[in-house]
């Protein structure tokens, strides 16, 4: 479908359907506004959002007084509650920040103080004996640790999908496969800017307001829209290694290093899918699409893993990948609203976007309201959608006798490593925001996300995707969801 010029401009077009853009669209969908959420990719959450350490941060180590510190704290509280209601997998594992040298040990009290300045008072230094009692597989040589009991792990795939689902169900038009290639200002009487005309790969879009949540491309979008150009994206690549579920019993908590000025360092963390994650590296690169892993990166992670949890490297690696953080020359978030241009920008959200997303959305909507976008609540109740549960800690469909009794497809396991059933794949294909390809299906169900990487099920899953009716009510209507690459 090619989008022609809209008869009526949208109140707001949000550019970028990552976790931040989707959260903003969801926030705006609660008001009497027409909203478009556009992304160049064929799915939500395919950029920085999909490849990160998947931690729901408390913000204990943020820079006190920064916008990031404030929005992380607010976002954490909002997302913790939202996740519970939407069925987004979260595990409150807590984190242990481990000092391996005398110098690192001396730094612990200042980290605790910083947490307190960030409004988080639950950090506690624990003696080394307690550390090894809690983490018996930790490598030798640790001297002390801080406990951060509220650090959690979260599903980075379900989160933006839940936001987008709620937004679409509330009337937001999701336009995937839609790259914005240019923009023109629309003027009214007296020369004041009254809106924008966006040129996209799927036609033009008119908008009264535009929100730039374009992540790795946000500086280019900012230039297109005549922003103040106060930041440049410098992608920081982080390589990550995911270990087999058999490694999961090796750790109890997220194991953090003492951060340095350059980087937060390499951590070892559980994932909500029951695996163990090791990473990330931090390398500044130029290419905004280069998510390749490197020999050096993988070797340095293996070495770090061997030091932190020696037995980890005896287990099989299930996946290795790289994500790009949208870093800028600034330490803090680049969030601003230009009332005269009717332009809002949420950029430079390096690595805390998942945790802060709902805080950022609430904050930005407030700024837009002050800048003249009227936020009048919509009539009727607002509730998050109940997302399919793909975590490991709770009960999955294959473990649920009542679900199988009601629908035998929930007993038909298709992906054996991750125990994904035919019923879950069918549901994903018929969901409000359906997947456009196998990778999208993987992020919604975990199919093919396991240790065999398709040795057993890839062909069956691909055949099932072709055989089952694509889309669902939303795609069948052909209006709300526009998945670009769907064949």
């Amino acid at each position, binding site marked *: 479908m090619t989008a022609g010029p809209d008869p009526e401009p949208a109140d707001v077009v949000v550019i970028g359907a990552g976790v931040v853009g989707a959260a903003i669209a969801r926030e705006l969908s609660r008001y009497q506004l027409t909203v478009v959420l556009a992304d160049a990719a064929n799915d939500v959450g395919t950029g920085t959002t999909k490849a990160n350490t998947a931690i729901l941060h408390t913000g204990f180590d943020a820079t006190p007084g920064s916008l990031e510190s404030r929005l992380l704290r607010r976002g954490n509280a909002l997302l913790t509650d939202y996740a519970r209601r939407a069925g987004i997998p979260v595990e409150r594992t807590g984190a242990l920040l481990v000092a391996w040298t005398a110098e690192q040990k001396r730094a612990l009290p200042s980290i605790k103080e910083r947490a307190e300045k960030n409004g988080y008072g639950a950090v506690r230094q624990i003696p080394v004996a307690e550390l090894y009692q809690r983490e018996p597989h930790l490598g030798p040589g640790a001297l002390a640790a801080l406990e951060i009991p509220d650090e959690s792990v979260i599903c980075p795939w379900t989160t933006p999908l839940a936001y987008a689902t709620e937004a679409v169900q509330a009337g937001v038009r999701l336009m995937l496969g839609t790259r914005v290639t240019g923009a023109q200002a629309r003027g009214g009487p007296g020369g004041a800017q009254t809106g924008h005309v966006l040129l996209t790969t799927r036609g033009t879009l008119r908008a009264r307001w535009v929100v730039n949540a374009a992540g790795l491309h946000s500086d280019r979008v900012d230039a297109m829209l005549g922003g103040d150009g106060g930041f440049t994206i410098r992608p920081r690549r982080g390589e990550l290694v995911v270990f087999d579920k058999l490694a999961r019993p090796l750790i109890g908590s997220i194991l953090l290093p003492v951060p340095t000025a350059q980087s937060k360092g390499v951590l070892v963390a559980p994932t909500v899918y029951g695996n163990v994650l090791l990473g990330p590296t931090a390398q500044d690169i130029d290419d905004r699409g280069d998510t390749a892993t490197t020999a050096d990166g993988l070797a340095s992670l293996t070495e770090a893993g061997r030091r932190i949890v020696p037995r980890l490297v005896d287990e099989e690696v299930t996946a290795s990948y790289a994500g790009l953080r949208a870093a800028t020359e600034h330490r803090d978030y680049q969030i601003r609203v230009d009332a005269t241009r009717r332009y809002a920008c949420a950029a430079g959200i390096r690595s805390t976007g998942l945790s802060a997303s709902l805080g950022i959305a609430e904050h930005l909507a407030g700024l837009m309201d002050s800048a003249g976008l009227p936020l009048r609540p919509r009539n009727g109740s607002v509730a998050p959608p109940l997302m399919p549960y793909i975590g490991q800690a709770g009960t999955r469909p294959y473990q649920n*006798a009542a679900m199988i009794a009601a629908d035998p497809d929930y*007993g038909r396991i298709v992906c054996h490593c991750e125990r994904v059933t035919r019923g879950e794949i069918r549901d994903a294909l018929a969901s409000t925001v359906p997947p456009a390809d196998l990778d999208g299906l993987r992020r919604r169900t975990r199919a093919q996300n396991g240790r065999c990487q398709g040795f057993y099920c890839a062909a069956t899953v691909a055949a099932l995707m072709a055989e089952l009716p694509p889309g669902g009510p939303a795609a069948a209507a052909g209006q709300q969801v526009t998945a670009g690459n769907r064949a």
Partner: protein
Amino acid sequence: MNVDVLIVGAGPAGLAAAAELRRLGAGQVLVADREQQPGGVPRHSAHTGYGMRDLHRVLTGPAYARRYAAAAAAAGAEIRTGTTVTGWAGNGRATLTSSSGIETVSARAVLLATGCRERPRPARLVPGDRPAGVMTTGELQQRVYLHGERLPGRALVVGAEHVSFSAMVTLAHAGADVVALVTELPRQQSYAAFALGALARWRVPVWTSTVLRRVDGRDRLTAVDVADVRTGAVRRVECGTLVFTGDWIPDHELARAAGITIDPGTRGPEVDTSLETSARNVFAAGNLVHAAEIADVAALDGIHAARQIAAALRCREPAATPEAPDHASELAAHRVPLTAEPPLAWISPNAIRFATPADAAPVPPPRGRFLLRSQVFQHRAALEVRQGDRVLARQRARLIPGRPVHLDAAWLARVRPSDGPVLVALAYG
């Protein structure tokens, strides 16, 4: 549900064991398999050569799979497909999930026959992009033989074992232009005649001493970088399909979930010559304990395990305890550990079983021989079997990484139950 024997996996080992257990009158036998059809890997392995050792005839993989499934069913075993053993429910009970629901099965004995899989690209830590078009032989065969997919364009095969040549044939069948087989080792590891024949017919070279350095392609695979391990010279090879072959990993997750001891060499459950694991009345057979052998060998394992299980059920108390592996002291009294020293990679089975702690004759291994793997090529190696200071046997063998080395078990009679572990090593000089 109560059964006498629960068999996990309806591949050659599991099905052969089921038929044999029924023939021996071992009672009710249930075979559970998570796939929709019984037969295991041979189902999607269309080449011929199956059945020579066990059935004394030559069959294709699918025909072989059908034959064993029919034999097990005819013998009276119940085969449940589309049924996953998802875990252990305590006291020797297994949890089974299928479209008809969740069921707990109690068994007097359990046979784990879950097979093995190829090590996929991520587990090999090959750097680069993550494009489509990268797969294992298992995925390739299913896509081509079970789902009729075509794979035109240039293809590269990683590995030069038997299975690598099989992947090459499958690729050619699917319309691919196979550029080469790539191996880090200094030579190929398949049968010379097979390799030369295949290479002559399809004109595919084997690039030895060559390692994959990088995978390229943002969406679809476009090229890979390969390097000469001797010179370090890197070259770029354009291709749209990349198949990782061999480098087998036992599917041991269910065994580990039961707390069963894993052999560090084979990475499968540690088994003695009766194929019993560290858990009482839990046995393991097939490529779970020696990844990977041909189907015939797995089937003969299954028959061996079936006879041992039948004997155990006749003389032991009915108490299968997959979750309580702690009959260690009893086992220790009946077992002599068997280990292979580097550069040998592993030996299977991993211990010699004595029927009684005293002087009774040891249980011979399946097919009367032990299986070994080597990490190195050696044309005429001398294998030496020692217990303490005593040399029990010497045997010449040709060592090729990934290829089976057979060690005849005639020396078993000379093993003394109380003299400590038996070692197999290369004799020098």
